[in-house]
């Protein structure tokens, strides 16, 4: 079967359990089993090739530039691990079918399990190390889901998060390591990397790469000091623990060390780091395991210890060590999976895993007892079981290993580790199964159905078979070892035998077993001593670190993002100033190319007024009305400046915009208090002033600089001046720029204006539905109201001048193309005419006389402008291409017709609609504020000094 299919089957199949879930638990488990079986059989079809020493490869390109390709390879090592993953997977699935209760969602469980299985198979079959990283992180993610499967347990959630954090951290470090490795080797394919041992070990980047990769391996395989997550992952359902912690997840780190062994091992750094970590983990795990009362915790720490053992074997860097490691991986997978499943059976039947509440189970569950005892004895290293063989090999290897210049350090530590290992195995058997039968089990246990004990029984059969007849396994172990070693070493000649003669390893083994038995005799006082010794509790420390990090993050975030806009603005201004200053000081300042102009009296006067008005705003800004008036002055001065610089169009536009803006703002002021409260301290205002002044000076300096220098080439405005009449049919260059040269900008800007009006409308509508409405209804004006809301003089005057305003608007509109004017200004002028009606005669009176909804006017304006632009398509010209012609209709003189005028009409409509819709929105607020309004244009309000409660009249038309 194609390797792709073997890897893909679990992923594709992961959908099925979820789909099959309603069909029942057996069906769900059945499809899962079938999928795994298919992958397993597919793997076995490749066995002949692997036995011939061939390397099966499949590959397609994914991101060749990155060096990330979906290339898979199957050699002895990969086959070995894949066999463990899929084989034990099959047993676990069968076991889980019986283990999970009706309350558990089995579809969800098996979906996660298959995802995890696929990721694991992916790791061991990857040829590309970046692809391996992908699967690596996938195991972290899918194990997160598996460990947290029982969501109702806080331990499950915490354990899942801890596992994800620790292994995720390792994974990220490994990303760095793998990238460096690939950079050194020039390829991310293992088949290339493994050929480059010398190149890699000579590189100055070897040590960083090694450390980062080992971080990944150590976190995944729970090596000291990252061992602490593994026991907490035991909150998962037992099948998960059995799977993750015997054959799969924790072996991923071991696998990777084995995989990269040919290129990374053998250097002093490798030996020192890997052997030390393995040794410490082995002893520490074994010691802690002995004193654990929870069966699964005991097994978890024993797993930690055994992983340390394998790591240490890989760390020694010899071929024999590698072979011992391979053999122990096999043995550990068999006996540890069986042990976890047995613990699960005990838990399932007795409803407790607390070793202190158990004992005497051998009479009640003889089958379980037999299975568990054989597996545990194998773990303890008792002859005729497979654990003995690999432990002997380990002790033999330890005997020859020199660490930190010491010949005795490793052997002694290894013996101590084995001693504790034997002790906890004896305790596992003794305190659970031996002793008298008790009568206080939470639930009376008995042997489960065959579905539950058969999977561990199959494993224990292997344990015994290999233990009694090691020659059965030897060829396979040597095959795997050969593929692990690659070109970096020769498979050792030594045979795996039960009896090697009276070698040191045997004595060490005897010491360990005897010591273990001895320790069981004095377990009670030892345990008391252990309980009374203060120990760092990894979980507490971990939680403290994470919670501390969260708190620190919150402090940082809260102090940074405290919601004060003033501060955000200040940071922005300071940033801009700093970056601008940096750009300035790193550049060269040349000499000005333009002469200074004499300012003249008018300019100075205008400048003085502008400055005075601006300063006035700063000092009087708390009085809103005054500030508004001063802003009006600023706007006027800007208009005058435009006149001064011979830009009458701009001046007119600015002037009318100012007028409309001030009117709208006055209406808005109506709903605000007259004065702004003081909200910041003097010190802060001083700070803000400093920043503001710096910003102003910066802008001024820039303006000064640019005004004194010519552009590097002729500005494009020269072209506009030269061609405005010839190409645009207008002598008013500004208008031609607006509607022709850059008509598209204008098209955009009228849309901006239209959107603004629409959003003012939408905003008003939502405001009126919300709490604002209540506030408006309860509002009392804070100042005495004018006696007459519609002064007669004003009413009469506005009506009289209305036609005049309309005519002026029309005139301005028409002359726009050649003289100052245009649709924009005309629109504003006409709006002012209508606004005056509102102000003088009241909104109800005016609204009743308006036929067209403003939304429609806006829409029509944009559509007219748009369709005008599209009209040129029919003449095979681009959007907005203008055309003009001269016509003569008697008795008028010859006049010009330009398509630009049609576009200008769109502008006109959009402007009128936008201004009026905004105005109407304000008046809606006023109306909702329950202000009286009559359909009559004039009335006399008797409540001049003392507003009566039903006649409060602060509306816009009455100031």
């Amino acid at each position, binding site marked *: 079967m194609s390797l792709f299919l073997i890897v893909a089957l679990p992923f594709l199949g992961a959908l099925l359990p979820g789909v099959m879930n309603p069909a029942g638990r057996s069906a769900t488990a059945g499809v899962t089993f079938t999928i795994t079986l298919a992958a397993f059989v597919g793997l076995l079809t490749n066995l002949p090739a692997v036995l011939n020493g061939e390397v099966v490869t499949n590959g397609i390109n994914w991101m060749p530039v990155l060096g990330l390709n979906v290339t898979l390879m199957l050699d002895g090592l990969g086959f070995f691990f894949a066999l463990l993953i899929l084989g034990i997977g099959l047993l676990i699935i069968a076991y889980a079918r019986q283990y999970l209760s009706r309350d558990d969602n089995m579809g969800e469980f098996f979906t996660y399990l298959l995802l995890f299985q696929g990721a694991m198979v992916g790791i061991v079959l990857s040829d590309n190390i970046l692809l391996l990283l992908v699967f690596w992180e996938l195991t972290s993610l899918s194990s997160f889901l598996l460990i947290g499967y029982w969501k109702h347990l806080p331990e499950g959630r915490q354990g899942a998060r801890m596992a994800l954090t620790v292994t995720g951290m390792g994974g990220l470090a490994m990303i760095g390591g793998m990238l460096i490795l690939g950079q050194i080797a020039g390829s991310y394919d293992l088949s290339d990397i493994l050929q480059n041992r010398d190149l890699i070990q000579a590189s100055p980047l070897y040590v960083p790469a090694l450390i980062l990769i080992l971080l990944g391996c150590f976190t995944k395989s729970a090596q000291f000091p990252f061992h602490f997550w593994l026991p907490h992952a035991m909150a998962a359902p037992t099948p998960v623990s059995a799977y993750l912690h015997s054959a799969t997840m924790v072996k991923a780190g071991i696998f990777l060390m084995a995989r990269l062994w040919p290129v990374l091992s053998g250097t002093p750094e490798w030996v020192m780091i890997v052997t030390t970590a393995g040794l410490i983990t082995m002893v520490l795990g074994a010691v802690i395991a002995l004193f654990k009362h929870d069966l699964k915790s005991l097994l978890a720490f024993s797993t930690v210890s055994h992983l340390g053992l394998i790591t240490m074997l890989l760390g020694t860097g010899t071929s024999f060590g590698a072979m011992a490691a391979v053999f122990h991986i096999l043995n550990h997978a068999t006996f540890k999976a069986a042990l976890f499943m047995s613990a699960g059976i005990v838990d399932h039947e007795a409803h407790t895993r607390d070793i202190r509440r158990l004992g005497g189970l051998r009479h009640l569950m003889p089958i379980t007892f037999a299975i568990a005892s054989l597996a545990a004895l194998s773990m303890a290293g008792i002859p005729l079981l497979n654990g003995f063989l690999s432990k002997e090999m380990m002790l033999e290897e330890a005997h020859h290993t020199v660490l930190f210049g010491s010949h005795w350090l490793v052997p002694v530590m290894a013996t101590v580790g084995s001693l504790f290992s034997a002790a906890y195995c004896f305790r596992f058997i003794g305190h659970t199964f031996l002793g008298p039968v008790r009568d206080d089990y939470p639930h009376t246990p008995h042997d489960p159905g065959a579905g539950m004990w058969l999977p561990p029984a199959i494993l224990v059969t292997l344990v015994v078979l290999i233990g009694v007849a090691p020659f059965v396994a030897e060829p396979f172990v040597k095959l795997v070892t050969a593929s692990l070693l690659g070109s970096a070493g020769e498979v050792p000649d030594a045979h795996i035998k039960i009896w090697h003669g009276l070698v040191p390893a045997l004595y060490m083994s005897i010491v360990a077993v005897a010591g273990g038995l001895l320790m069981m005799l004095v377990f009670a006082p030892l345990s008391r001593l252990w309980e009374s010794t203060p120990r760092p509790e990894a979980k507490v420390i971990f939680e403290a670190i994470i919670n501390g990090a969260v708190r620190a993050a919150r402090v940082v975030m809260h102090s940074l993002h405290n919601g004060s806009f003033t501060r955000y603005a200040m940071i922005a201004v300071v940033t801009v100033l700093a970056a601008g200053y940096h750009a300035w000081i790193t550049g060269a300042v040349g000499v000005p190319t333009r002469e200074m102009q004499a300012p003249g009296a008018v300019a100075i006067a205008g400048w003085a007024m502008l400055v005075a008005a601006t300063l006035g705003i700063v000092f009087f800004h708390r009085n809103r009305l005054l500030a508004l008036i001063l802003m009006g002055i600023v706007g006027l001065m800007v208009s005058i400046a435009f006149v001064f610089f011979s830009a009458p169009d701009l001046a007119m536009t600015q002037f009318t915009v100012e007028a409309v803006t001030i009117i709208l703002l006055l209406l808005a002021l109506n709903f605000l208090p007259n004065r702004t409260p003081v909200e910041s301290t003097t010190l802060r205002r001083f700070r803000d002033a400093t920043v503001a002044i710096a910003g102003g000076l910066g802008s001024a300096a820039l303006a000064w600089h640019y005004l004194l220098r010519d552009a*590097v080439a002729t500005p494009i405005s020269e072209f506009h001046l030269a061609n405005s009449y010839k190409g645009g049919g207008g002598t008013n260059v500004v208008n031609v720029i607006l509607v022709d040269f850059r008509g598209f900008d204008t098209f955009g800007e009228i849309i901006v204006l239209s959107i603004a009006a629409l959003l003012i409308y939408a905003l008003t509508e939502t405001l009126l539905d919300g709490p604002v409405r209540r506030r408006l209804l309860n509002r009392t004006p804070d100042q005495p109201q004018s006696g007459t809301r519609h002064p007669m003089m004003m009413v009469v005057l506005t009506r009289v001048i209305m036609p005049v305003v309309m005519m002026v608007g029309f005139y301005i509109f028409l002359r726009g193309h050649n003289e100052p004017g245009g649709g924009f200004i005309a629109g504003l002028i006409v709006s002012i005419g209508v606004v005056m009606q509102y102000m003088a005669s009241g909104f109800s009176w005016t609204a009743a006389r308006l036929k067209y909804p403003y939304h429609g006017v806006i829409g029509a304006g944009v559509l007219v402008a748009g369709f005008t632009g599209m009209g040129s398509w029919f003449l095979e010209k681009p959007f*907005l291409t203008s055309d003009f012609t001269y016509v003569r209709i008697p008795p008028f003189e010859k006049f010009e017709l330009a398509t630009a005028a049609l576009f200008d009409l769109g502008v006109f409509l959009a402007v009128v609609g936008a201004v009026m819709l905004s105005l109407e929105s304000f008046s809606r607020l006023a109306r909702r504020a329950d202000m009286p309004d009559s359909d009559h244009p004039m009335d006399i309000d008797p409540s001049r000094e003392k507003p009566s409660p039903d006649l409060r009249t602060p509306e816009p038309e009455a100031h």
Partner: protein
Amino acid sequence: MSHWIILPIVLPALMAPFIVLAARFHIGIQRVFSVVGVLLLIALAAGLAWHVADGTVIYYRLSDWAAPFGIVLVGDRLSTMMVLLTVVLALFVLLYAIGSGWDSRGDHFHALFQFQLMGILGAFLTGDLFNLFVFFEVLLIASYGLMIHAGGNDRLKAGTQYVLYNLIGSTLFLFALGAIYAETGTLNMADLGRRVAEIGPEETVGIRVAAVLLLLVFAIKAALVPLHFWLPSSYAEAPAPVAALFAIMTKVGAYAIIRVYTMIFPPDLDVTSNLLETWFLPAALISCAIGAIGVLAARKMDRLVAFAVVGSMGMVMIAISLFTPQGIGAALYYIIHSTLAAAVLFLVSDLIRTGRGNVDVTAQIPMAGTFLTAGMFFAGAIAMAGLPPLSGFLGKLLILQASVSADLVVWVWAVVLISSLISVVGFARAGSTVFWKSHGTLPDLDTDENKEVATPPTILSYVAIGGLFALLVLHTVFAGQVHGYTTDIARDLFAPQAYNSIVLDTPGKLSKPSEGH
């Protein structure tokens, strides 16, 4: 001259007023027109992207005036790719807005939505810097309207800050444009590239300051720390579909930086040398870190996603700040990814809001549709945190690899990887609290009160999110092809001869090629 390239701007620009004019009171009709409009846009965008895929540059003279005197639209591989990304995102966001009923909770949603699209698409397609300003205005004002859609005090407050901050940006944009026009006398991008290259070494401050001011404008849009303060609150408070659409808005800033600082101010230009090296990459690194810290610190799901967006923009900026073809190629790949991932997460956080009435990261009663929502959150978080197997991981690898020759490579790797870890922890905490811990405090589900809270989202909502997620998967599966394309784009940007010659050497009304020069 074919008019296809202007249609993505004109179509929404006319669709919106049409909806206002004719369908103001009928949400059903608005929906039909809005969806049809977006579908047409997708067809247009796909056609344009297909047309330029071989490196052709399409060019359009507005009002028939040639560059640099008039405004031109230019469609190259970069701009059409961004256009396609925008409209595809828009379709799913729109479907979600309809499915969840967000569009009917205020006025003028669909009109503003169309205007918003017009602004974004215009910004991608224009070849003129001032016209870019105009489109920035369009998209800003439309986005403000969308942001405060449906109202509410917090939203209005955040909206006010959003619009004020962006007005600072607009003002700065005008300053920068004034400065650039004063220095060069032109506004067309291709022409600018040519004229800036002519500036001599004796007088460089003017163009340097102008270049930096312009960059800061785009940096505000792209939410580069410390100019990001407008983003977290406004994205968190905006209606979810709007926030999802806004995922593309930060990319407009990134796009502008890519466009301007390769074609106008290329990295090897003498007058602007050593201009950005000192602070741009460090700022990007800080953005990346701040984003991750914000994810960890967040007490609400929507704020968490908003900070994830800040972080992902940091990643984009890291890649851009290298100013190499590899860096830009990686940045573009990551931009597509981060847009889709952010949109997915914003929409998923709205599912949580629909399910239980708020998005607090606290244990609450279980909500309807938890399993599916949790799965979508998990997938979205994987994408956003840059874990395998989704495109975020590939993008991260690309960025790490592109930075190998940078001076600060160690910093880049450390910050990127550690930030990833922090956001993984943040996402895991938030996800397990919201989706798992709720099982711990299970009250009686049969009471009427709880039933009322738990209204399952509509199928259309799931379809919309699923569609975005499917795009993420495609982006992952076809990573090789997509990245190949973005690398080609990056090469074009560093050798813009084709672009420049077609823009500057095509005659228009009353002008011969390069007359103004």
